[in-house]
């Protein structure tokens, strides 16, 4: 791409951004538009990789923002709220010094208002950090679900929830798209070539889940992660939370009184002139 073309794109982007912002109106102050926050969580989903120490660095800062010690297969951190920007996730052998060369590292670009799961996936020989983008909106009244296939024993796992197939013949490290399902009690079944497993979940509306299929001794384990949750029934619009007892109150209209005063003064002035007029009869006497 030439410089002028990229400059043109930048200008276009700026125009679009400005338009979008002006359409949003005053509801969003400028401060949050310039730099917001995103969400990040870290996971270890590699069955034959021993426990690791996981470090999160803000780009250009040698001091780790988060250090998670002894993270083993199946562990997922809570979400961390971080300023939008570039981050580096580094994995080191358990109890290795913070300055040692990491086993694995990856860069994540966190955009404002978005959420990410950074997961160590694959076999230990080919361990990779995958950056998954987590959805933050669900269709109104529905639960949103996706599947991460983190079982190494089974190479083709079909995952279903009630009558819905969430993923068919999922390979190790496969991640499905989110699907909307009806909230309520749900039996999630994972069936591989020789092993299977199931787990019952109570799904809430307007809530987003990730099911992780994991190796367990002799069977598959279905773990349910709660990614994001909203109100089960979303209240409509604003709320009436005040009666005006502290609000400024406009006074009674002043105009009628102003009119009365003006008319009165005018009449009084007229009367005075008349009286003074009579008190100087000499002017008019003939």
């Amino acid at each position, binding site marked *: 791409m030439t410089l002028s073309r990229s400059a043109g794109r930048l200008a276009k982007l700026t125009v679009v951004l400005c338009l979008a912002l002006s359409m949003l109106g005053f509801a969003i102050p400028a401060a949050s538009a310039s730099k917001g926050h995103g969400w990040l969580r870290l996971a270890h989903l590699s069955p034959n990789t021993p426990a690791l120490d996981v470090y999160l660095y803000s780009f250009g800062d040698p001091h780790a923002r988060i250090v998670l010690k002894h993270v083993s297969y199946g562990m997922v951190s809570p979400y961390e709220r971080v300023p939008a920007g570039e981050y580096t996730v580094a994995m080191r052998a358990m109890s290795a010094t913070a300055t040692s060369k990491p086993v694995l590292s990856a860069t994540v670009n966190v955009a404002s208002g978005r959420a990410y799961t950074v997961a160590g996936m694959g076999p230990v020989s080919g361990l990779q950090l995958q950056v998954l983008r987590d959805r933050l909106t*669900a269709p109104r009244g529905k639960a949103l679900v996706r599947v991460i296939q983190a079982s190494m024993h089974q190479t083709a796992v079909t995952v279903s929830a009630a009558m819905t197939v969430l993923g068919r013949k999922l390979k190790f490290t496969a991640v499905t798209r989110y699907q909307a399902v009806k909230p309520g009690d749900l039996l999630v079944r994972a069936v591989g070539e020789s092993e299977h497993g199931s787990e019952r979940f109570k799904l809430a509306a307007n809530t987003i889940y990730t099911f992780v299929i994991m190796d367990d001794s002799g069977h598959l384990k279905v773990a349910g992660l709660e990614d994001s949750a909203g109100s089960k029934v979303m209240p409509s619009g604003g709320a009436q939370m005040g009666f005006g007892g502290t609000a400024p109150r406009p006074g009674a209209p002043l105009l009628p009184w102003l009119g009365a005063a003006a008319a009165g003064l005018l009449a009084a002035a007229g009367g005075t002139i008349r009286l003074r007029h*009579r008190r100087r009869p000499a002017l008019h006497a003939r």
Partner: protein
Amino acid sequence: MRGDLTTPSGRHISPIRVVRRPVAAVVLACGLLAAGAGVAGLAAASQSGRPAVPLGRAKLVPVPLGRQAPAPQPFRRKVARPTRLIIPSIGVRTKLIRLGLTSSGALQPPATTAVAGWYTGSPRPGATGAAVIGGHIDSQQGPGIFFRLRVLHRGSRVYVRRANGTLAVFKVTAVRSYLKTRFPTEAVYGPAPGAQLRLITCGGTFDYGTGHYLSNVVVFATLVPRGAR
């Protein structure tokens, strides 16, 4: 001549002209009266308005003590139900009642203006998602529990005591005001990662025609888990 008057200087004045003087006097008197009434009315009318009640000093509320709640578990685990709300920086210390929805589907306001309430359809404070707590800015007489909510700022701490005695500690990330006609339902009540909190009250202009405020003030906060600053 009968009916005719003579001035002291001996000048002759007709009866019609004589009548004019009392009329002028009466006009003058009435004018002065009307002007006086007008000025008095003006003074009274200008006093009948009222400026906004000043924020004043918040009641002194100490920072509560207790075991701080951890970050929500990624694998869902139930947290205890919220019982009290404490916001030391604006003098709020109240029990939390339970709120539902009105018949029109809006967030139900608490029955009294002296307490706040947790919307039972939202996640519990400290669990994954956006917990919703509402309270009145004022009654018809004066300040309500959330009168000073709008002066919270980024970094202010909000404490929710839970039934098992633990404290969910939140830090304010934003304080926004929205016209009720343009309320961002998804941002306030929609899915949210991590444990978050929304405090809702009224604000903006009060419409004396409808008896409602035109805006809502929403405070966005996120959990400070045990061990974090």
